[in-house]
């Protein structure tokens, strides 16, 4: 963190400070681009919604908190923005006001508050055991103070990281994602799963690499437990998505598993794996937003929510399904598209890490889950474009252009970042190296 | 776990707790300084000062009254406030204000008045003046002989109740009205508080106060102690009378 901007300083331990470092800048760009695209989409989608003024108010406030979160320079500011981002993004989930949406919003709030409280516990300990408060690569724990009680700190580290991973949808605390997405309006669920889950990832990155420090956690039971948890989520997410008929819930389960790809890369504590994780953060945001906007377009124009209703829809909505297919291929990891490079670095990083079992088990699970991803995404496109003779083809018309434009941009992004990924990869490698 | 079982468990728990408590306390008392020995810890310079210098300084031959109304006067001010506040609580609970018609009073049988049994009323009429005189004597000589504001007030309060039972509600209420109670109690307590805050202020800031000690032994010898004794006696007797009238009739005069 080069120079810090102090918004409010109560005492040396308690201050709201902001500072831009590589990681923060990357997440800020990602958030901004996604927010603009989904915003354009939402201007059209709002004809379906009541209380549109309230929706856009909270839409922008959540963006404010996300930007502040990426620029946060110490644990306290990050926690404050994380907490307010939860409270401000919750009204977007209960936008329709139906009892299910209220129940889903309450569940979302409870899981996030539970996670945030564990994160708060992490802050108390880092405030006590830390040398300073500003995020420093390699960790800010003061070795003298930490000498006696590593075990205590490791437990707290595990709890705070598990707490923040509630927002990223890791295994024990993932249940809110599949319930929140189907009831939220399409732009809200696109933003919620594409970008807000990445806020959880950002907090975990900060806590692991810049509060406790990679060297402190490397090789400990904490790292092994977290890797196992992320692998369980990766596998479980794809399995659940495989059997799901409601389109948005299927995509929500796929989010759960894909974000755990990122977490797997973060937990292996190796520069190359971290590079793979950062790349996957960007690719997954682009792809998942594309998928959700596609699903939203289908719901908006033809009111079809279930995958079984989409047979032959490709002929009616060629552009939407075209982008949907491109994004699906990217997510599965087919080489020319975006997803492949990140999965490649993830596997390479995990293999070179050297943890006894997990170094090869990780890539195996990733590969298996990639197949499952193909299993639940490709049938939508295939049945969409080539319905069998027997079934009755679904009627419907193409989505308006204002909704298609963001999808096209995203699909283009998937292709561009797939083919010309080298400059992006180098920049991210520098950020990854700076973290250790 | 139904109600009886819970009650039995509670009873057993309480008895066990009490037995343990009593045994612990007996053990501690056994370790305490013995009864009546002259060199106990509490026979120290504090007690010596109150008994030896007390009478000259305050002019009160009765060291206990001297201590209560001069040295530890803040405690006793708190005391009178405890009495006053408990009277207020009894008012809050039992006073029936204004609109309660006669039948509610009858329903709660608060109009009950004992039939005036001739033997009792005659003996009360003989006793009342004697008890009043005795109460006043105890209060006035609080600092010279055993007694003082609290015990004198209690006796005067008892005399008022005797008067009430002897002469019945109407005669008593002719002079014991609600205004009288409020005004007299407020005046007594205000005098007490103001007088004592004067002595506290002058004492704490090192100014000399006019409170002379006079010649110990005669009535006006003890500076503020006599007036304070009277105030305390008034407060105590008024409180006793008002509490009795509240429980009995729910109000001073109807």
């Amino acid at each position, binding site marked *: 963190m080069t120079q810090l901007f102090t918004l*409010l300083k*109560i005492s040396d331990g*308690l201050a709201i400070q902001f500072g831009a470092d590589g990681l923060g800048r990357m997440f800020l760009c990602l958030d901004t681009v996604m927010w603009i695209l989904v915003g354009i989409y939402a201007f059209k989608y709002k004809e379906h919604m009541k209380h549109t003024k309230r929706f856009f108010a909270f839409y922008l406030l959540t963006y404010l908190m996300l930007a502040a979160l990426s620029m946060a320079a110490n644990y*306290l500011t990050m*926690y*404050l923005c994380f907490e*307010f981002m939860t409270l401000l993004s919750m009204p977007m989930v209960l936008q329709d*006001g139906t*009892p299910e949406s*209220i129940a889903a919003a*309450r569940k979302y709030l*409870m899981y996030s*508050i539970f996670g945030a*409280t*564990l994160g*708060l*516990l992490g802050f*108390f300990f880092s405030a*006590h055991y830390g040398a300073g408060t500003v995020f420093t690569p390699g960790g800010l724990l003061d070795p003298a103070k930490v000498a006696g*009680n590593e075990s*205590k700190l490791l437990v707290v580290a595990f709890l705070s990281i598990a707490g923040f991973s509630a927002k990223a949808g890791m295994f024990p605390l993932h249940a809110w994602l599949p319930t929140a997405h189907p009831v939220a309006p399409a732009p809200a669920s696109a933003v919620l799963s594409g970008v807000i889950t990445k806020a959880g990832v950002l907090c975990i990155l900060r806590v692991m690499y810049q509060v406790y420090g990679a060297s402190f956690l490397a090789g400990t039971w904490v790292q092994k437990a977290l890797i196992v948890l992320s692998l369980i989520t990766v596998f479980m997410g794809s399995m659940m998505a495989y059997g799901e008929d409601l389109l948005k819930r299927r995509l929500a389960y796929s989010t759960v598993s894909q974000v755990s790809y990122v977490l797997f890369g973060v937990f292996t504590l190796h520069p190359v794996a971290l590079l793979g994780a950062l790349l996957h953060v960007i690719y997954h945001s682009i792809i998942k937003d594309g998928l959700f906007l596609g699903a939203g377009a289908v719901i908006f124009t033809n009111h079809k929510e279930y995958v079984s209703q989409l047979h032959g829809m490709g002929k009616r909505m060629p552009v939407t399904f075209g982008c949907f297919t491109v994004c699906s291929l990217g997510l599965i990891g087919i080489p020319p598209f975006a997803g492949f490079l990140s999965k490649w670095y993830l596997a390479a990083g995990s293999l070179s890490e050297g943890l006894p079992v997990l170094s090869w088990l990780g890539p195996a699970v990733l590969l298996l889950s990639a197949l499952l991803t193909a299993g639940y995404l490709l049938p939508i496109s295939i049945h969409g474009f080539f319905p069998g003779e027997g079934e009755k083809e679904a009627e419907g018309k193409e989505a308006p252009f204002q909704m298609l434009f963001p999808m096209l941009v995203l699909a283009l992004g998937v292709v561009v970042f797939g083919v010309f990924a080298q400059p992006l990869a180098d920049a991210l490698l520098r950020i990854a190296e700076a973290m250790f | 776990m139904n109600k009886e079982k819970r009650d039995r468990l509670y009873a057993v728990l309480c008895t066990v707790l009490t037995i343990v408590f009593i045994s612990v*306390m007996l053990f*501690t008392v056994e*370790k*305490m*300084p013995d009864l009546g020995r002259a060199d106990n*810890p*509490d026979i120290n310079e*504090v*007690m010596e000062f*109150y008994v030896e210098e007390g009478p000259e300084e305050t002019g009160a031959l009765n060291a206990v009254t001297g201590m209560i109304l001069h*040295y*530890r*006067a*803040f*405690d006793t001010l*708190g005391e009178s*406030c*405890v009495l*006053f*506040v408990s009277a*207020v*609580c009894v*008012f*809050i609970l039992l*006073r029936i204000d*204004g609109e309660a018609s006669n039948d509610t009073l009858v329903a709660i049988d608060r109009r009950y008045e004992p039939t005036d049994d001739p033997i009792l009323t005659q003996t009360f009429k003989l006793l009342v003046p004697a008890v009043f005189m005795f109460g006043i004597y105890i209060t006035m000589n609080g600092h010279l002989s055993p007694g003082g504001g609290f015990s004198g007030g209690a006796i005067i309060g008892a005399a008022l109740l005797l008067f009430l039972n002897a002469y019945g509600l109407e005669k008593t209420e002719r002079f014991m009205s609600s205004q009288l109670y409020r*005004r007299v*109690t*407020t005046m007594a307590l*205000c005098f007490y*508080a*103001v007088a004592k*805050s004067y002595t*506290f*202020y002058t*004492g*704490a*800031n*090192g100014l000399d106060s006019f409170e002379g000690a006079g010649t110990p032994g005669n009535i006006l010898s003890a500076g503020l102690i006599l007036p304070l004794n009277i105030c305390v006696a008034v407060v105590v007797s008024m409180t006793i009378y008002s509490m009795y009238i509240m429980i009995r009739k729910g109000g001073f005069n109807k």
Partner: protein
Amino acid sequence: MSLVQNVPAFSILLLMLCGIVCLVLPRRAARHLADCAIALVAAASVALLVYFLQGGAAYTYSMGEIGAPFGNELRAGMLEAAVATLFSIVTLLSLMGGRAHLRSDIGRLKVNLYYISTLFLLCSMLALVYTNDIFTAYVFVEINTITACGIVMSKEDGYTLAASMRYFIMSLIGSGLFLISICILYAVTGHLLMSNIQEAVAQLYAQGEYRAPLQVAIALMGVGLSLKSALWPFSSWLPDAHSSASASSSAMLSGLVLKSFIFLMIKIFYRVIGAGIVRTHAVLDLLLVFGILGMVMGSVNALFERDIKRLLAYSSVGQIGYIFCGVGLGTPAGVAAAMVQVAVHATTKAMLFCAAGGLMDASGGSKKFRDIEGAGRRDPYAGVAFIVGTLSMIGIPFFGGFITKLSLVQAAVTVGGWRNLLSILAIIVSTILTAIYYINVLAIIFRAPETAPTKASEKLKEEWKKQVRLDTEYEVAIVLFILLNLAIGLRSDQLMQIITTGLSMFG
């Protein structure tokens, strides 16, 4: 002795005088006298606090010109001045916040009796804060108990009478034990003034004499006072008493009365017996364990409540657990954390009870959850107050609750061992449970009328439609409460500094 050093005695005697004079005044005059008296005392306490902030040393104020070991004494330091300011400001705001309820709950002719009880309640709390003599402390503990019952009883319905009877009996067991421990201490040391007792106790401990009576006296003191301040196993009376009383009474009870007994216990532990001896005593572990149980059980009970005021009362039981956890840790940092929680909980809980009163006005006087649906929209002041209260309870940074949790965890971490593990576990569990039931309350009071699957009766529906007429005093009180909460949150560093220097002056 500069003029401002007379503030302790002046504020106690002024409140006593006004309480006595209120007996003869009519309703309106009594109200104005009470407000002016409390405001004056608040201003005087602030002046005293400023005197200490400018470097004044703690001093003893002997009542009457007699020297140390004889008469009564008050002792004022920075911590006492801060606590006195807090108590008087919160009392004033609670009275203002609950004024509308006073008119409806209490009989017209008995309102001046209510003001007498409030004035004497504040007078006894200030006396407990300032006194340096344990028997004066006992006398004012009794005034505190009687007046606390007075303001509960003044609402005069079946619930309050039963609740105050249970409260009274439980408190009297507590003061019986407290009196016994005072007698033992007097019998063993021969003094009644706290500083003299401390010297005698230190000397006795050095010689090893009367060790058993001292241990028992300390234990009885701890048990007696924790019994009076509703530590968890003895808190069965608290939910009934605080939920049935009228809004301003429950605000004062929950916010202040419990705290005055705790402050007295801290004073007795650290000034009568001395920090060194108390830390070796087992009663602190007892308080710590019961505090931890209180934190968890209070929050668990609050989860199942379907009545807004009972929920707040159970959450008070939980928050009191925080204070006892701090005191139970034994270290100065622990006591500082306990004092921060005293300040934060006093303002937050009093605000929430006044806001609960506002919610009840907006929904036809009922306290049940199903009747106050959407009340947050009808009475925006109560809504915002509950939002601020929830954010503080969840532990959002720069709110009161966060500072408490921060200081308590840092105190626990320095202690280490099983105490540290248990208290941190309890803090996390109770924070999560508190978050759950406060968010539950927010969801209910902010539910939009058309979406709510209400089970409320038809009569209640038009009740909701009627525009609620809030009186300005209630609005001013809620706004001031919110500002006070934010001030404590944002100026927490100065609050912490006041408390630590106050504690160092305390001994």
